[in-house]
């Protein structure tokens, strides 16, 4: 499958709208405009606290958290997908996925700060210090900040490809921390965090395999260059 530049761009716009899905879904549930009402005044009348369940803040927290994790994993899936499927143009979506991960992560954190804790700084500091799932979750978010800031083409140029790549390998740490964040918060049923963790293991496993293969190959090449005779057995 080869796509023209134009097709890639159109597809990207569609993908962008799809990436807004988790947010739109929440907004839709929250506002739930009745079909027969019109005008802003009726929006509130059609809203129902129960559209987001008995514990709406919890629902928002979970939905934004889940979206964050999914976009982190999608970002990490781009490289294996484009290599294995032979679709190099997929790289052009990676930045968008990564920024959506940061976007949903920000919403997730904002839900905690504003809706859950309502700016109770003391309580939040205690949480970050004492609750390991919050500690790692917060760390996962903080590590995304430099990546979001340096996501522009300008920054890639300024840092140089190699250094930029190095920096952006932090996303591996974010992903692992995000899985532990999920795993440590569930009361008992760890099925879902384990599933997400399995996907991450595959995505990171792919990279480790590639890295091992390349290291062996380059070691062999170095050896050949340094001491060509060793590959030619003396007769």
């Amino acid at each position, binding site marked *: 499958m080869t796509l023209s530049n134009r097709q890639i761009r159109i597809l990207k716009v569609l993908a962008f709208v799809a990436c807004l899905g988790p947010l739109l879904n929440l907004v839709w549930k*929250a506002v739930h405009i009745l079909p027969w009402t019109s005008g802003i005044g009726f*929006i509130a009348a*059609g*809203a*129902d606290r129960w559209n987001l369940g008995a*514990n709406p803040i919890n629902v928002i927290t979970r939905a934004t958290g889940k979206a964050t994790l999914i976009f982190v994993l999608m970002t990490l899936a781009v490289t294996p997908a484009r290599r294995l499927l032979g679709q190099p143009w997929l790289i052009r979506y990676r930045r968008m996925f990564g920024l959506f991960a940061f976007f949903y992560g920000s919403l997730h954190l904002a839900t905690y700060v504003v809706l859950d804790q309502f700016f109770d700084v003391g309580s939040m500091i205690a949480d970050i210090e004492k609750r390991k799932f919050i500690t790692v979750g917060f760390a996962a978010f903080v590590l995304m900040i430099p990546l979001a800031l340096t996501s522009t083409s300008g920054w890639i140029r300024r840092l140089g490809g190699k250094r930029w790549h190095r920096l952006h390998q932090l996303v591996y740490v974010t992903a692992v921390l995000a899985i532990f964040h999920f795993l440590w918060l569930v009361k*008992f*049923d760890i099925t879902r965090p384990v599933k997400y963790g399995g996907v991450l293991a595959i995505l990171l496993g792919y990279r480790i395999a590639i890295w091992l293969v390349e290291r062996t190959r380059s070691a062999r090449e170095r050896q050949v260059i340094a001491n060509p005779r060793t590959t030619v057995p003396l007769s």
Partner: protein
Amino acid sequence: MLIKKSGDIVSSEITPKKVFMNRRRFMTGAALAGAAAVAGHFVGSMREPTQTVEAATLKISGKSPYSTNEQQTPLKDIENYNNFYEFSSDKYEPAKLAQKLKTRPWTVEIAGAVPKKEKIDIDTLLTQYSQQEFIYRFRCVEGWSMVIPWIGFPLSDLIKHVQPLGKAKFVKFTTKYDQGEMPGLKYGGLDWPYVEGLRMDEAMNPLAILATGLYGDELPKQDGAPIRLVVPWKYGFKSIKSIVKIEFISDQPTTTWQAAAPGEYGFYSNVNPNHDHPRWSQKKERRIGEFFKRDTLMFNGYGDQVASMYAGMDLNKYY
């Protein structure tokens, strides 16, 4: 509609069924928060509950003096936001899945150190013991809470009736176990059947009840029909649901959650804001339907009735 509580009328008589949305309270909170735009969804309009209770209204002959006059949690929340792992570990699924639970015929086995081991039919329990209303706070170990108008009778009424022997120091309760009716059982993990326990003095405390209904009707299945324990000064998971067996034993039983994670869930599991769950704080709770968290009270606010039972005990050790 704002529910007004009057001192001498039971809730079932004054509150039209299915009309329990407490939006005013919530709107105030949301407006104060200045988050009205975000919180648009909190503004309640009425919608029918997804599950309705088709059960005979219980005959209620009295009201507990320990009832709170705090605003009661809407029936819709009580019916749809449940932890009932025998059906699902999701909170919204038991409302659907628990409808498979057969609650008739139903017997409660009285076993252990009692002069007469017997199986009591649920309808006998419903008629033999006068059913009263108990409006209790309910605090889940996960950090949310409700106010629930239970119908039931003091556990002590039953215990006095079955006259356990002197060697009975603990009461052990067991939930129904039926793989055909309970799809959550096959996921394993927890040790089924679900088991809970109380020390004998806790079981005799007038706050401890066997609940058979709420909001004037029989218990919704997802809330533990046809009969469950309610011990409001303890975390919700102690209030075991759908009981089929009550045993009087001499040694402290190992409860289900205790067996699953002993460092997180103790035998006592009294509501205690000063003893955090290892993974989250217990200092505050969110009352379902409210925006701001509120402080969690020692023994869930029932210290006057229960604190003396734990005098001299290190509650950080016996959590």
